[in-house]
């Protein structure tokens, strides 16, 4: 098994990108990553694409071929694979490429994720998102994706006494980070009080507890570590990778306030590199809802169960705290394009580990973790990155 490094990254602005098609987004971010890596298309052995919803929002399947074609890679008959696991599509695409390189099958892969959520109406994109849950037995019964997380939040509150103030602090902190990120969808700070008073979506989750459905794209270039030096001296190694699944529907779970798949995926990633949560300098987690960030922090082991919410309120997850979380702004403020999100997390960590994160740089960032999940964490993917 070989080591794998990230030699290039690219990301588009996230938001309502009316002028950009899925193809354009894929091309833009792919080119950015390739240029950053200093490679040409001749160097690419395979393309992996993370995309959740092209079938629903664009009536387009076979997205791998679409992007390969538009980027000119189909002219060279480069193998292209689309990976889908709802919002974990991006992180999972990276893992697939990672395993192919680690296993010696290929040397260099471009992994891109893109999504066009705004090409359909709000109600359609909202229904599409609920396809990441059990469409037949949850969505059809009237459960919106938010309502499932609202029930998760209810149980976390029941179990640990989590408060409104604590939930709001998570979103406020992510917005503060986004105000330092020019590629973020909402690059402005938000007052926790405003978050606490925003419109109710599904009790107790309010509008500003919820990440948007965005357009956006991100890409990375993975390369066998022993060949990475040829292209860059800023390679970042993937030293741990874990993945786990859980029941699709919430009503088949044992606990309603936990995401065990994240716990298992994280444990596996830590075992790979013999590291512990306290060794990390920063993390990116999948905050599709404020409660998800809190539970992810507990599942990864950053904080003890029941303590993440208060630690967030105390500022420990903010730049300068003991575990800067989502310096990109997270899904909430950087934006959430399901296929791209997992890759955008890696892009942020790579920039941080290279020391290129500008105003939001975590000092001496050497070790970082990205947690990406799909549905109510029916799929969880965790990667640990280390500056070489």
């Amino acid at each position, binding site marked *: 098994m070989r080591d794998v490094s990230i030699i290039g990254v690219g990301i588009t602005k996230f938001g309502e990108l009316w002028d950009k098609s899925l193809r354009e987004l894929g091309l833009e971010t792919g080119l950015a990553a390739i240029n950053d890596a200093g490679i040409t298309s001749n160097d690419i052995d395979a393309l992996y694409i993370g995309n959740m919803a092209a079938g629903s929002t664009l009536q387009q399947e076979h997205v791998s071929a679409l992007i390969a074609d538009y980027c000119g890679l189909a002219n060279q008959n480069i193998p292209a694979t689309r990976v889908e696991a709802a919002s974990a599509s991006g992180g999972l695409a990276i893992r697939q490429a990672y395993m192919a390189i680690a296993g010696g099958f290929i040397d260099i892969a471009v992994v891109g994720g893109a999504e066009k959520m705004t090409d359909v109406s709000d109600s359609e994109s909202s229904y599409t998102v609920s396809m990441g849950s059990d469409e037949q037995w949850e969505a059809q019964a*009237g*459960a919106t994706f*938010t*309502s499932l997380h609202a*029930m998760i939040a209810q149980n976390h*509150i029941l179990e640990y006494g989590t408060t409104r103030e604590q*939930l709001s602090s998570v979103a406020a902190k992510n917005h503060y980070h986004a105000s330092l990120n020019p590629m973020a969808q909402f690059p402005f700070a938000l007052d926790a009080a405003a978050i606490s008073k925003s419109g109710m979506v*599904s*009790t107790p989750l309010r509008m500003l507890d919820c990440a948007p459905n965005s357009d956006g794209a991100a890409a990375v270039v993975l390369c066998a570590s022993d060949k990475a030096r040829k292209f860059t001296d800023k390679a970042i190694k993937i030293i741990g990778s874990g993945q786990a699944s859980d029941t699709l529907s919430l*009503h088949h779970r044992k606990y309603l306030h936990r995401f065990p798949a994240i716990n298992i995926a994280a444990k596996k990633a830590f075992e790979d590199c013999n590291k512990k949560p306290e060794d990390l300098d920063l993390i990116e987690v999948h905050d599709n809802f404020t409660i998800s960030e809190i539970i992810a922090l507990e599942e990864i082991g950053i904080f003890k169960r029941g303590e993440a919410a208060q630690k967030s309120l105390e500022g420990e997850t903010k730049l300068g705290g003991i575990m800067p979380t989502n310096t990109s702004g997270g899904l909430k403020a950087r934006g959430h394009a399901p296929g791209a999100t997992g890759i955008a997390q890696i892009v942020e960590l790579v920039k941080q580990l290279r020391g290129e994160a500008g105003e939001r740089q975590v000092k001496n960032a050497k070790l970082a973790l990205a947690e990406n999940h799909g549905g109510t964490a029916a799929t969880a993917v965790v990667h640990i990155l280390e500056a070489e």
Partner: protein
Amino acid sequence: MSVPRFWRELDTRYNLIGSYCKITDTYHYPRRSFNPEAGRESIGSMEDYQFKGTGTVITATVVHQAQTGYEMFGPYCMAIIELDEGPRITSQIVDCTPDSVKSGMKVKSVFRKLGEDSESGILHYGTKFILLNNSEDEETEEDTIENIEL
């Protein structure tokens, strides 16, 4: 939902038909031909079972931004309900003030319209739940979520 896909689950939706696993003496909803806990042995040992329709609210939320097809309900209650026989089901609780539903309340099944494909399309029917009147007696300190609307 497509006609065949809906039709295939009629019994499951209309009559709360699930499965009983003879190997582990456990109940499952919706109907399935395999019980992961019993493994391969369970194939062929899963019997159809009709649930009584009574259960307990495990958790509930008031949905203010409706799922597609549910816009006419105004804010409505969505809950995870544990049927008396064990399995859990996600369902709307109707005919009540949505925020009056609390964990621990008893519910029973009713037959309601779930939706329609369009004005000219097939109507979908199935099971929802209503509160049982004696639910107030069942509430205990630990079951009640105080001030959940944050």
